[in-house]
């Protein structure tokens, strides 16, 4: 019989159900998600890939200030959203816009932060998606609090809290795991280990046997999964979500994946990693792997594949159109949302801005004459 500690330890190798060539592994032969689930996942990944590519282009066109791409991590992005129910919550990082879109948030609103109009572009309550968080791991204790509040009210909400490998070095990561464990909060901590925190490789973040092993220190079961295998991700994450929903507390899931692009468009990845390494990971592409399997099994045909591509193109078109529209930001907004009611000082300061604007307008008017 397994001890409690053994039950919390992850498997020695990441769970893989489809190998990089799209063939079911031994575990995959035993059990795979239903074909419809996999098709839904593929559709999501095709859309996410297209979205990543579109956003990358929009940066070069000056329409986005910056874009941290999840190219190569689409299986993680899609699975994180796909395993959730409508009443669940998703807590994303800045690299998880594709997951946010997969959750149903409007793609243009999802890119609000990166466009630079405002710090967050969507209503977090509408699809139950927290704002993209830029500081590392700070969203994780928020996720625990949201989960605990739901639990106090007797709701069945589960919270999916995403972070990266670098974030596991932050204090908030540890505090969040510990709080979740102590309060038995229904949270799935989902680490996308894409091997690099900007330039710093995983070996400089941690020498733990795996990041999933960090769970046991808090009394949380950990699991590691191939982050480019959508079938494995759906299985592991939905298992964690359902256990959390059933009152069995939090779980830690580490997905082994790879950031194919640089950290952002402003980064130069050739300074810290080799082309060979990138090529090796490109060969493990999550889309190709799943598509190969689905075609081999006759689950996916050309018509369906074309429909997925068309839907992805539609998202790209909406994203492009939305971001190509110039919306004049209103400086009043800078003062409107600081407090529920602006202080008298803020009212005075806004008047200063208005005064400057009207004088600018006046001098432009005079220049024209």
């Amino acid at each position, binding site marked *: 019989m397994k001890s409690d500690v053994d039950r919390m330890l992850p498997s020695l190798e990441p769970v893989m159900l489809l190998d990089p060539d799209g063939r079911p592994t031994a575990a995959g032969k035993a059990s795979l998600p239903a074909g419809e689930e996999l098709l839904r996942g593929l559709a999501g990944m095709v859309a996410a890939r297209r979205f990543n590519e579109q956003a990358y282009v929009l940066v070069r066109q000056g329409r986005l200030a910056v874009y941290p791409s999840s190219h190569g991590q689409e299986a993680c992005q899609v699975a994180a959203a796909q395993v959730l129910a409508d009443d669940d919550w998703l807590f994303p990082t800045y690299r998880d816009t594709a997951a946010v879109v997969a959750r149903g948030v409007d793609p243009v609103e999802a890119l609000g932060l990166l466009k630079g109009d405002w*710090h*967050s572009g969507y209503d977090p309550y509408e699809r139950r998606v927290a704002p993209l968080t830029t500081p590392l791991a*700070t969203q*994780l*204790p928020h996720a625990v*609090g949201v989960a605990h509040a739901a639990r*106090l009210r007797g709701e069945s909400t589960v919270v999916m809290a995403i972070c990266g490998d670098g974030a596991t070095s932050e204090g*908030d990561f540890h505090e969040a795991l510990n709080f979740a464990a102590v309060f038995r909060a229904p949270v799935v901590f989902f680490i996308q280990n894409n091997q690099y925190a900007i330039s710093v490789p995983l070996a400089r973040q941690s020498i733990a046997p795996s990041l999933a092993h960090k769970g046991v220190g808090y009394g949380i079961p950990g699991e590691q999964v191939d982050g480019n295998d959508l079938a494995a991700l759906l299985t592991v994450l939905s298992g964690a979500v359902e256990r959390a929903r059933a009152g069995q507390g939090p779980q830690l899931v580490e997905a082994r994946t790879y950031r194919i692009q640089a950290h952002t468009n402003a980064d130069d990845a050739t300074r810290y990693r080799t082309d060979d390494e990138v090529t090796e990971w490109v060969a493990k592409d999550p889309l190709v792997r799943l598509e190969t399997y689905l075609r081999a099994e006759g689950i996916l045909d050309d018509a369906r594949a074309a429909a997925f591509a068309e839907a992805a193109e539609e998202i790209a078109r909406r994203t492009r159109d939305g971001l190509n529209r110039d919306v004049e930001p209103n400086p009043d907004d800078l003062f409107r*949302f600081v407090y*529920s009611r602006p202080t008298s000082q803020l009212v005075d300061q806004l008047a200063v801005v208005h005064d400057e604007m009207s004088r600018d307008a006046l001098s432009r008017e005079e220049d024209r004459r």
Partner: protein
Amino acid sequence: MTSTAVEHETLSTAQAINRALRDAMAEDPTVLVLGEDVGPLGGVFRVTDGLTAEFGEDRCFDTPLAEAGIAGFATGLAMNGMRPVIEMQFDAFAYPAFEQVVSHIAKMRNRTRGRVELPLVIRIPYAGGIGGVEHHCDSSESYFAHTPGLHVVAPSNPSDAYSLLREAIASPDPVVFLEPKKLYWAKGEVALGRGREPGIGKAVVRRPGTDATLIAYGPAVPVALEAAEEAARGGRSLQVVDLRSIVPFDDGVVCAAVESTGRAVVIAEAVGFASVAAEIAARVSERCFHSLSAPVRRVTGFDIPYPPPKLEHFQLPSVDRILDAVDDLQWEDA
């Protein structure tokens, strides 16, 4: 003003805060009290005494010992329908929570264009004068006051402690509630219930006076009142303004007071450089320049780390130091 009769009780500041928490919890089931040792122990200052027994472990509970975790966890609770009141056990022990407070609690409303409100209160036993060893006596208000999005409140007496905390808990904005430790045991008449004039954002004149204005908040207010009493015996009439609320700041009451006397001394325990006292002095100088008969003086803590217990009396603004500053207000020119 409410039409219902206001009940009064004589309470210490700690008891008044406890009563405010109890009354708020009884009125609103979403009010939660959490932090280190706030459960069965009732807090190291007994401010949360009896709350777990009365409301159960779901409403008042101990957390793991991690201030960032507490602040971040409370952020999530507040995002999801609760009104958490968290305790940072001592001023200097709140620093691990600084990132959560500054980057998230203060900014969430603005970040989300008002869609996500964080009605949470951060209670901090603060400031010195209790013989506390290192890290137990910091005056950290400037850090919070410098952060847009937070309200920062510091009561100077039991009645304000009660009413300001009730208001803070009911507020849709996050409030840093600074509890002067030195005043925990000071007793006073407390008007219970809600519905009085708002106190957050409103300064009050605690003592009328015509010769000079002493501006203080939190633990410095009783010292200012004592100084005014002493000055009165020497024939000088000092007005005392109690800010109550550092943010929002009440320019109206403060400036009217200073304009009425033409002289001002700002008193605060915190280190003076780049402090709330410095800000007040600057605001008063800017706004009341033509009414001033002398430069605005500041009596603050020195620019040193908070001293050990046997030396702390050198750091705290004293009646003598206040009166010396008042004596310096160019009376010979009058």
